[in-house]
């Protein structure tokens, strides 16, 4: 029986950047363990050495010309307008590197 501990759930939530509370940690631990139990069956199947996970329709190397498409007017002003925090033609983001931080 797969058992995903609270510690592992916390780690996954950290990786996925999702805040969850204690009650949710317990719930997800239970649910994810059950789901993983279910998918464990794949491990025991024969023939799992076949295939390389190639693109589903066999497409390869689909490229386009390196040309501008001009899909949006005014260099995507409409996209900037979607952002909750913006200034002029910039999307405002939190400071990532603190001023006195050594890189």
């Amino acid at each position, binding site marked *: 029986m797969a058992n995903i501990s609270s510690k592992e759930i916390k780690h*996954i939530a950290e990786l996925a*950047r999702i805040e969850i509370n204690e009650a949710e940690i317990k719930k997800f631990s239970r649910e994810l363990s059950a789901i993983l139990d279910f*998918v464990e*069956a794949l491990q025991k199947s024969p023939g799992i050495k*076949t*295939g390389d996970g190639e693109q589903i329709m066999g497409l390869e190397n*689909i*490229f386009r010309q390196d040309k501008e498409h001009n899909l949006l007017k005014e260099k995507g002003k409409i996209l900037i307008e979607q952002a909750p925090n913006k200034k002029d033609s910039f999307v405002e983001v939190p400071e990532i590197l603190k001023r006195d931080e050594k890189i």
Partner: protein
Amino acid sequence: MNFAELTISEANQALVKGEISSVEITSKALATIKESDGDIHAFLNVFEEEALQMARDADKRIKQGEKSSLVGIPLAIKDNILVKGFAATAGSKILESYQAAYDATVTKKLRDEGAIFLGKTNLDEFAMGSSTENSGFGPTKNPHDHQRVPGGSSGGSAAAVAANMCLGALGSDTGGSIRQPASFCGIVGLKPTYGAVSRFGLIALASSLDQIGPVTKTVEDSAIIYNVIKGSDILDSTSFINEEVALKKDIKKLTIGVPREYFELESLDGAVKDRVEEAILWYEKQGAKIENISLPSSSLGLASYYLVMPAEASANLARYDGIRYGSSFKTDNLKDLYFKNRGSGFGAEAIRRIMIGTYALSSGYYDAYYKVAKRIQTQIKKDFKDAFGKTDVIMTPTTPTVAFKLGEKVENPLQMYAADIFTVPVNMAGLPAISLPCGRVENLPVGLQIIAPWYQEKLLFKTGLLFEKNH
């Protein structure tokens, strides 16, 4: 004449002949929505004024001689497909305030053809679900029984069509999200061959599985919409269509494959099985040959899907960080911004699937889970290829049961996932499949799923039409 009860084909003929106007049909659709949707909740957003203006423009076009197949036809669009200038929530609170900055390719194609957009329909959040109960804005009800689910994730589109709120709709299908609600609501749903319809402007769930497709009253209407939206698109590098496949024989003399693993499944309801077998027997009476086949990897389809799809979803949903769009908490550091926006914006099922996907792709588990699942996918595809070596089409039930009750499965994710057991392998293989109504069980609709080889949508339509017109 109740305009809302027309099919697209009937309405188109009447419009082009000048017997009715698009404004009349559109007004009737809007009135039906006003009357019934307070209860059913198929729509998240109705474009009353804009729809009437589109209808007036369509009537002008028709007067000038426009004869396109969809001119003046009011349609509903699933809310994970972008329609410029209107909200596109994907059924999620995290996109509650998002307004589409551009049209999806399919939207543009429908617009050019002169179709009318009535509004955006409800769905399970980010198309994750089989009942529309995972919507961040409340569930949709099955028009046949308001205590039951319409199916999902395209539940809103299916309910809207079944309740005559529109003449047709668009849905999306990643593991059955068009076919299963079509089955539960007694209408027709098509998932095209992977790549046959552009995904540009479809809010992505699983990029190697998603497809947009028509949700309609009839197979004939399904073909009409499909023929407008299909085609490779420079904006979607995974779109590709091979139209050279020709129908070889008399449609009545098909060889129909019946996969034993599907029909012997314990969880397949006996009455549902009967309805589907009766339909297959009907085809046999018309001259078709029934061939018992085996799809051995069927038992692994659901499990491998629930690894591949969440893995891709976890990557696709990483963009919802509250910075470029979506809600934004005021925090003093980047990490908190992500955690809070995503923690509060996503619903339980979305979080569940992101977590499974993150786990399956994380260091130490990637080989054991994701890679194995991708190999199973190749196996599933091979099984179908072998089967199509001796059959023309494959027929199965679309779902193991009829529509279940609201609240019945929502607390048990694995039980909910099992609703997709017959539809999921089709997405994994990239095949086209259609669900059409084939009878009732205690007045609840049952769907017959027909699967064709890659790019043979025409075969699906011809096979389905035979049943639709003569049964």
